């Protein structure tokens, strides 16, 4: 103990004595530890921490299996069949999004919520903090209108008032009785923004009628495994259910469970979309930490070489080698601890930056925090880093013959550590190249993605979603009239060049797909296509080009012949080499409803993402659709700054009905950028890590060369004295640095080729072996390395031979 205190005291003095070294090492370690801790704090709740439910490993998601193992939302009757025939599950539930408008004393507010089957909360294993859970008797068609509130909504809208239970609130102009409040810490990973829940109230009796919402594939199914049933057993049971239809659960065409069910643990399901990105980022930050360690190891090696006479003296005075190693590791641990203090500060700022940068689809974002696990992680990596960076320098510095060390100057004996240092720099260069290639590939990829034409002109375009609520809007005519009057009011505004509305907006997250069945086709054949119920002028306002025929216009009256415009992709798929104009099809509505006649073909539009070419689409006039869509997205083309028009447009819409909520006000340019948010998020992190890695690698090259020049001063002096031109000395030192760089580049390129397949899912439009990226990154790294080499090389070339020859 006494020895340890002595070591600590001496280490403190040593570090204080070499302030420049200490500050540099602490800054580099702080950066490495801070970045790793920040990323860990973001990744931990998403990838590693169990979900905040009892026995969360037993909670499964069950999907209707599509071709090739794809996950298709299940229908209500699929759920019923599994619930009735399955024995593997303790609880089973289905849910769908619900966005009711809450009205009352305050302004109307559009809430995010879910309609769930009665066992939803029991499946998750969470009970309300106030009141009672849903009962099976709540979840029947036309059952009681009851609602459960989130803790946040209860506090925000109703104060912490316990009398809320049993009170009526108005949702979409209907009276709902509040029966419960969920706990404050309840985290609903299946719909993180949901604040209100009501029973699904689907009909269990209409299983024989295929054209009902109960056969619509729009639900999500969650289940809790029995404690004595394994995932594999449950999966086998699901497969058996799918393969053996029973008369009690007849399956219509299109829902025959041909590909069975797909089930996965809830955690895996929730994180599936972001896992590759997060693992890539976690890998990148690990590489950054490695570079930081290598850098500090290099600094410690150089310092160790200078201290060899001191250590030799200690040995001569009786210190065992293990004692010297302990002393040196104590110093490196102390450095790491200081680095950790700085790292925690960096990490806290980093976490804030991460949250602000992170894409909306990142799950469990609010669970990102500085908790015990994060501190434990920071502590562990600090200890590991402390030992890792200290061990090589300690072994090296404590080796050697004491008599020789004492009598010799340090510059002569540094050859061995130079070799280790050069090897470490090779490692640094190769790792930074790896990171830079990752960043380069993603940058290239994002550029490609953002240059994908979305199929419309997104400049100067403002969008906003207008919802209707209230009983009177149940009347289709009233609903249509409201939207048309609102549109007229918007069009009258100065600064508005064109305006229209659509039932779903490209790149906004909307996804409304219907099956189109063309006249003359077999009833089995259908074409899945996005359905847009639009106002006249939609194509003009969006800038979607007309390829054939005509647009939908105001002459297409509600009670006139039903017309439709289709996308080029659908036209080519269904009518290759034929003229699609005049062809007729059925979509939505009852089978006897009139057919739509194709009057035009327009260019393809990217609906879900710039990366996905799912462009088969059908456009109909909103008033000709089977029902009035209660939610429409307005698109307004501005003459100037689109965003500046938002307040006046809202006022214009509210001039028609001031109670209708307007949400999702965004320019189309922002929507386009947001659609690439995940890639952008990973890119920003890779760029940051790549930049820091490049900087650290350059510092490493500079440090090693600089040390080498100091050690070779005498040699350089001799060479100059023997007539070596200064350019020759410059080239000699440059060559030394560039050999290290080239070696690092070769290893880095090989590593990048091997590792690039891990990035495939994050790339778009380029190969993970894209030669341009590789060449560009190699040139960048060589340039930076060249600068790092040039400085010590220039210093060497400027040496005064007389001084150099005297130097020892």
């Amino acid at each position, binding site marked *: 103990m006494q020895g340890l205190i002595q070591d600590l005291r001496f280490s403190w003095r040593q570090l204080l004595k070499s302030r420049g070294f200490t500050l540099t090492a602490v800054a580099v370690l702080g950066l490495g530890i801070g970045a790793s801790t920040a990323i860990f704090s973001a990744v931990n709740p998403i990838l590693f921490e169990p979900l905040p439910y009892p026995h969360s490993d037993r909670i499964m998601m069950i999907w209707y299996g599509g071709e090739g193992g794809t996950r298709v939302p299940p229908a209500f009757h699929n759920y019923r069949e599994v619930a009735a025939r399955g024995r593997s599950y303790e609880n089973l539930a289905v849910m769908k999004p619900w966005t009711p408008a809450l009205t009352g004393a305050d302004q109307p507010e559009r809430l995010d919520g879910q309609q769930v089957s009665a066992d939803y909360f029991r499946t998750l294993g969470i009970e309300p903090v106030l009141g009672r859970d849903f009962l099976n008797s709540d979840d029947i068609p036309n059952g009681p209108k009851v609602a459960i509130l989130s803790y946040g909504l209860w506090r925000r809208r109703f104060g912490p008032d316990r009398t809320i239970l049993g009170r009526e609130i108005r949702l979409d102009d209907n009276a709902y009785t509040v029966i419960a409040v969920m706990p404050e810490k309840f985290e609903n990973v299946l719909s993180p923004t949901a604040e209100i829940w009501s029973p699904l109230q689907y009909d269990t009796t209409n299983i024989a009628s295929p054209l009902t919402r109960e056969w619509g594939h729009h639900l999500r199914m969650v289940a809790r495994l029995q404690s004595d049933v394994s995932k594999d057993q449950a999966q086998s049971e699901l497969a058996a259910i799918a393969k053996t239809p029973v008369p009690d659960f007849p399956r219509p065409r299109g829902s025959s469970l041909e590909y069975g069910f797909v089930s996965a643990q809830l955690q895996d399901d929730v994180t599936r979309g972001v896992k590759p990105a997060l693992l890539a980022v976690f890998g990148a930050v690990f590489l950054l930490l490695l570079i930081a360690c290598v850098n500090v190891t290099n600094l410690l090696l150089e310092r160790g070489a200078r201290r060899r006479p001191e250590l030799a003296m200690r040995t001569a005075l009786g210190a065992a080698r293990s004692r010297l190693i302990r002393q040196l590791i104590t110093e490196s641990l102390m450095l790491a601890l200081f680095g950790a203090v700085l790292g925690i500060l960096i990490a806290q700022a980093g976490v804030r930056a991460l949250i602000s940068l992170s894409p909306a689809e990142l799950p469990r974002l609010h669970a990102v925090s500085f908790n015990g696990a994060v501190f434990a992680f920071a502590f562990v990596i600090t200890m590991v880093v402390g030992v890792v960076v200290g061990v090589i320098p300690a072994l090296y510095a404590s080796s050697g013959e004491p008599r020789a060390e004492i009598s010799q100057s340090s510059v002569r004996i540094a050859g061995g550590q130079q070799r280790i240092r050069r090897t470490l720099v090779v490692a640094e260069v190769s790792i930074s190249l790896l990171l830079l290639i990752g960043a380069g590939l993603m940058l290239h990829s994002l550029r490609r993605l953002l240059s994908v034409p979305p199929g419309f002109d997104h400049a100067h375009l403002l969008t906003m979603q207008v919802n209707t609520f209230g009983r009177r809007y149940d009347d289709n005519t009233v609903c249509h009239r409201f939207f048309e009057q609102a549109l007229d009011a918007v069009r009258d505004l100065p600064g508005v060049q064109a305006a229209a509305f659509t039932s779903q907006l490209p790149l906004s997250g909307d996804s409304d797909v219907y099956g189109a069945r063309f006249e003359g086709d077999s009833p089995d054949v259908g074409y899945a296509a996005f359905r847009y119920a639009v106002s006249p002028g939609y194509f003009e306002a969006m800038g979607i080009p007309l390829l054939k025929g005509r647009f939908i216009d105001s002459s297409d009256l509600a009670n006139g012949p039903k017309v439709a415009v289709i996308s080029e992709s659908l036209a080519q798929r269904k009518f290759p080499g034929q003229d699609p104009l005049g062809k007729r099809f059925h979509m939505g509505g009852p089978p006897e409803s009139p057919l739509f006649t194709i009057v035009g073909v327009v260019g393809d539009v990217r609906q879900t993402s710039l990366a996905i070419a799912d462009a088969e689409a059908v456009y109909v006039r909103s008033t000709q659709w089977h029902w009035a869509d209660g939610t429409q997205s307005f698109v307004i083309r501005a003459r100037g700054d689109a965003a500046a028009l938002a307040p006046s447009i809202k006022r214009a819409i509210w001039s028609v009905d001031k109670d209708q909520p307007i949400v999702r006000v965004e320019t189309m340019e922002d929507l386009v950028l947001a659609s690439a948010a995940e890639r952008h998020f990973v890119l920003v992190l890779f760029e940051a890590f790549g930049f820091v890695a490049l900087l650290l690698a350059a510092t490493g090259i500079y440090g090693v060369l600089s040390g080498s020049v100091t050690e070779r001063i*005498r*040699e350089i*002096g*001799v*060479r*100059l*004295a*023997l*007539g*070596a*031109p200064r350019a*020759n000395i410059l080239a000699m030192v440059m060559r030394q640095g560039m050999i290290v760089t080239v070696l690092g580049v070769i290893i880095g390129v090989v590593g990048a080729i091997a590792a690039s397949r891990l990035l495939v899912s994050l790339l778009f439009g380029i190969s993970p072996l894209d030669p341009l990226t590789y060449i560009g990154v190699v040139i960048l790294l060589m340039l930076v390395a060249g600068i790092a080499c040039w400085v010590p090389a220039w210093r060497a070339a400027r040496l005064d*031979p*007389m001084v150099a*020859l005297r130097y020892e």
Partner: protein
Amino acid sequence: MILETTNKFMIQLKSIERSYKTGAGQTWVLRRVNLDIQQGEFITVMGPSGAGKSSLLNVLALLDDQWEGEYWFREDAVHALKRKQRSELAKRNIGMVFQSYHLLDDLTVEENIDLPLSYKDIPRRERQSLVADVLDRFQIVAKKALYPSQLSGGQQQLVGIARAVIHKPSLLLADEPTGNLHSAQAREIMELFRELNQQGTTIVQVTHSETNAAFGRRTLQLRDGWLVGDTSNPALNQAEVSAS
């Protein structure tokens, strides 16, 4: 006058001064040194430590270019030459031998000797031939593949001299060439210098050893930067020193 000078002397120093700026002000290491050296001379520079011997040698070697005064090397006014021109002049005419040999540890004997030639525009084949000649002449052919650490001090200095004369310099400068050698080795080296001098090489050596000085034909005495004695110029005026 200039023509007369250049015809007569190999080197002529006129009022050479060299000083360093230190914390305490300016420290003079050479004061108004006037010196004429003729082709074929073997000169010994002596004096106590700090007298300016090595500084004078560095000026002569053109390693130092921070001095003031006039330096004529044959017909070349060194003081008017640019750094690069001085370097070229040195490369053509001057060889240096160091007390601590200054051989490069990572190069073999052969490569060390070849080093000065590698900085000249000489074809490789010719260089190899020149190196072979020198190895032969210095009787170190058997050691050509060895590294400096595998040689004795005397052998290392032999290599150092071989390296200094490989390009046939007309002036050989030696700074304490036997300082690290025992007497038998020192004698061999001095015999070699005499032989080189007899073959026409002008030699200027710095030494503390009277024995080594005896190999030369002219001895200069330096003290506190002043040239205070010259066996070829007994009339060197001590008063000049005193007056200053």
